[in-house]
């Protein structure tokens, strides 16, 4: 049997996941991270995007994290997400709608929008959609 490591995903609002996993795949600030048990201590930022967990026995679960931090210790992995969702809670229609709105706001140069805020919104929505697609593929 493959070795496992204790992993927990918590967001400011609630605990999303806690349990033993074989591998965690998350989107770090400078690229995708795949973490196996016994990893050397690591501290990294997390970009908006999917977090994939491979549970004991090979079952996969996908979550969405809208940014935060990941801490890795040899015996535990902690993801401190700003907001996190289970992938099946994600609403594709809502994500598409807010992506469209953000794009519109960006295109509309006349309105005095906060450029940084809108573009980070846009990034987040795009990441959410990416997660949904990944989740769909997995389901097929």
């Amino acid at each position: 049997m493959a070795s496992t490591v204790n992993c927990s995903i918590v967001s400011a609002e609630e605990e999303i996941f806690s349990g033993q996993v074989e591998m965690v795949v998350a989107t770090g600030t400078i690229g995708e991270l795949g973490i196996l048990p016994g990893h050397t201590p690591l501290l990294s930022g997390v970009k908006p995007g999917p977090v994939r967990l491979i549970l004991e026995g090979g079952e996969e679960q996908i979550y969405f994290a809208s940014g935060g931090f990941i801490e890795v210790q040899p015996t535990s992995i902690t993801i401190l997400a700003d907001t996190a969702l289970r992938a099946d809670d994600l609403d594709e229609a809502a994500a598409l709608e807010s992506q469209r709105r953000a794009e519109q706001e960006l295109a509309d140069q006349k309105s005095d929008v906060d450029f940084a805020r809108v573009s980070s919104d846009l990034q987040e929505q795009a990441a959410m959609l990416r997660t949904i697609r990944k989740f769909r593929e997995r389901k097929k």
Partner: protein
Amino acid sequence: MANAKELRKQIGSIKNTQKITSAMEMVAASKMRKAQERMALGRPYSDEIRAVISHVANASPEYRHHFMHEREIRRVGFIIITTDKGLCGGLNINLLKAVVLDIKKWVDQDIEVDLCLIGNKGVQFFKSYGGNVIAASNHVSETPAVSDLIGSIKVMLDLFEEGQVDKIYLANNVFINTMTQTPAIRQLVPLDPDEDEGLKHRWDYIYEPDARQLVEGLIARFLEAQVYQAVVENVACEQAAKMIAMKSATENAGELIDELELIMNNARQAAITQELSEIVGGAAAV
């Protein structure tokens, strides 16, 4: 002899008060359940981030944030979380008593104290008690948002960064159970690493991308989470204390009504007896 009519009026008004207190009790009970849920939901995050921070503090990082350094203490800061409204028993008084004792200890050592107040009751108290209040925010709702709190905390943290304040404490009520809430004063910065023998050896994280940026972000998030959690916990305490206070007020009103009713009945009976004896006396005289 007490007037029966007056007594009846008094009983009526106490009954009205009782209705209000029992309604408040029920409102507080339902609000408490919600507040407790919120508190329970937020706890994992603040516990986990506390653990991560204490790992970071225990590590031998290439970069040490100034929030990690112990400094010589010349001035301390308190962030004090109280409720906005009263009618919640001794909740605020107990907390403020504990804080005042602590402040006195510092003042005795010739160390000045700055205060940052969250909640109306604390603001009112220190207005009459005196003290160097540098930031105050009241009307924190029952569902507080982190953004509501950031402003006043930032003032305090900025002072720490500038070196004006050398230690910051966070004072709030801790929810133990519905019946018990105790005041707690905890050190917020400098960060206070947990003693963990397993982590004592020399080691450090791999930082991606950059230690300074990460640790700064993490610490900011940690402080927010701590204060947010404290405020949420204080809301749960407020509702629990209010529920208990209103419950005992309702019971006391019931007792008062019973007593007054007894007196009123006595008075009525005495009046009847007197009337009867007057009639009998009158009849005998004829």
